[in-house]
């Protein structure tokens, strides 16, 4: 689970969602220093110091787009016998093992961009951590959830050890 890479990838369109998010972040990150520079310029009656904002914006843009394309191949997941396993992360790698037995409930979410690109995201809640699984084919999301809930119910029925508590 933890050392072998799970088989399934996210929907390829997930990259474009991340790129869009990167663009949005870039706009914010550029707008803030630009606004500060403009205010300072107005206060001191000097020319607007624009280049820091441009540098920051360029870096943000480059990184967020690069990140989107680096993150996609890193994002792998699978449903193993006992747990939902997620591998992800570009700089910091994360591996999450979420046993079905611990699943409390599952949300299927769909933002406007997700809908346009035919995807949904699953949010799997336990009593402590909740894992997000984005970029699931919209048609598949509901059945995946049913399957996970099914497995959760079955796992609960199987655990008989008295010192194992659901919460």
């Amino acid at each position: 689970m933890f050392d072998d890479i799970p088989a399934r990838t996210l929907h390829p369109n997930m990259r474009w969602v991340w790129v869009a998010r990167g663009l949005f972040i870039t706009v914010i990150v550029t707008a803030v220093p630009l606004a500060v520079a403009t205010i300072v310029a107005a206060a001191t009656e000097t020319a607007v110091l624009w280049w820091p904002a441009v540098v920051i914006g360029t870096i943000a843009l480059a990184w967020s787009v690069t990140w989107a394309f680096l993150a996609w191949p890193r994002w792998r997941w699978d449903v193993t016998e006992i747990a939902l396993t997620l591998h992800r992360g570009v700089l910091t790698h994360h591996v999450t093992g979420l046993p079905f037995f611990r699943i409390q409930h599952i949300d299927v979410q769909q933002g406007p961009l997700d809908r346009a690109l035919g995807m949904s995201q699953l949010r799997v809640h336990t009593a402590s951590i909740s894992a997000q699984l984005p970029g699931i084919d919209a048609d598949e999301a509901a059945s995946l959830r049913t399957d996970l809930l099914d497995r959760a119910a079955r796992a609960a029925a199987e655990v008989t050890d008295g010192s194992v508590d659901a919460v």
Partner: protein
Amino acid sequence: MDPSMPSDHGEHESGTPPPAPDLTGPASEPSRPGQPQPPGPGRAEPPPGPPPPSSATGSAAAPPSFPDTDLAAGDGLTLDPPDTAPHRLPLRSLIGGISPRALWGLFPAFFVLRDTGLGFIAILAAFFVVAQVARFIVWTRFRWGFDGQVVRISSGILWQRDRAVDVERIQQVEVQRPLLHQVMGTAVVTVETASEGGESEIRLDGLDNDTATALQAAILTARRRQLAAAPGAPPPDPTGTAPSTIDTEEPTTSILKPPVADLVRSALTGSSLLVVPVSILALGEFAFDVFGNDIDEVATEAARAGARLGYLTVAMVVLVVGAIGAVVTTLLRDWDIELVRRGDDLRLTRGLLTRHATTIPLHRLQVVQYRQNWLRRAMGAGTLVVHSAGGGTPASPNEGGGAKMSIPWVTTADLPGVLGAALERSLRTHGDLPENPHRHPPAARRRLVWKWARGLAALVGLVVAAVAVLDVNGLVTVGGSGWAGVLLAALLFVAGGAWLFSGTQYRRLGHTSTPRVVLVTGGVLGATSDWMPLGRLQGVEGTSTVFQRRLDLASVHLAPAGTGNAPVVITDVATATADDLGDHFTLVAAGRPATIGTSAAVAVPPPVRQDAGSGSPPVLDPTTRPGIGPGGGPGPRPGPTMPSGPPRGPGHPAETEHHVDP
């Protein structure tokens, strides 16, 4: 009949994302063919053939199968087809849902806008209309459904959210009727699980009364049936077991009762020494408020008085007053502190003027932390904090589930007894506490050197910068050779400090596990030990940063239940070890008991006795056993990086066989 239908303003099967007919068939089938690929390639899943648990229990016991019509008839609620959320809330829920508090929110606007006269009313009306239109749109997209197994809601306009809660995970179903709702004949149904968030997982605001009560009854019935169907399963919900009721006379046994002398010791060695200085600072602020601009004079006067007494005397006085303050506050808080065991609860009572009682049911206990700062470590004692899943559990309505309890002074001699009581549920089946933590690889030390060097360099950098500023302003003259000396000293300090601190911290790093309890140690000058009963482990996460990967290191986070309970982190173990630990603890979290002993033997590297000098893990029990459970692995224990596949295999069928009912 059919009270759910009136709310059904129009068909709206189509309103929900999942196409119902598709799913009914496959949904109840355990492993459907077109479904997520079988567990990835590689070693992962040992049992030959399809995993027995899924194929067998799924079809036989089939708890997740769908509607019982008699259930529906009995409760006056028509169950929905699986995987649908067909119902709207009644339109009048929009009126019932108007919250008076939201109207209060407009109150400040009144002050801003009162001069606008009629305009104000117009603005207010506009606000109201916009808000109601928004609510109407939200209402049009809201759907709920209950198919006898899963409660569903689907909502959202731009961001659509579709939530499913299995009855088995439901902790509580509440029906409330606030005033406005009573007028409208509607109710609020809230469904709660044990999830990490604070709020209800499902909230149906404005369901008509009959549907609300019918829904509540149907959910509770389904849940009861579920629990009955799986007799072996522990009730996933404390409500069912009600282990801690106050009325039943449970025998109480005292576990620990630190004498007053110990409380004084804890006061004089801990952060409560800061109480007085901090309050003096606060007082200074207060004095500034009172004296205003005269504060300078007052301060000068005080300084002059201080000078007369001698600054040493003043310092002594402050110290003594600080100590007395610490003792007083500690005694007020912890007077007559006693930890008792009552039935299956831990109970801590304390306090001089007001007595506080905290109760933690043992089955909600999540983490036990033992913290020693260097002073307390030298004195052979420390603070013990017991964390629970918190939240007001229905199990103990009278005392409210305390999130945590802390005992200020537990000596290392008393520790095993307290731990034994706190972790009793886990030790019942597998006797021993974990001990002799495994050391982490030397690369962990290298990483610590860098961490300390970074931190100390930042600190020294600040000092050097301050000196430079003074130099520039001519307050201090450093001079060329002086600068060389300063830089050399800084370098030596950073290097020496990094080497020293990384060494002490590295010696404290450790982890070990029995089949039931994991122990993680850490600390720098002081020592920390975290015990976590594995029966409540919720999930596992492995992380490795860029820097960790360069040293072939990774960390393993073990998440306990409960909001705000930080995970127990095994920091900087070899990547291969982290992978094995991750696999192992995921299995444990999945509640696979039989496999635990086996894979513990595999996943955890052979124990290396922590040298006695570091002394961080308090010595617990003389009957030592290397942190491997009694089960042991079949055959010889493989090395640390051995893939845990083969040995785990035998565990599985053994565990699953008595569920696989033919």
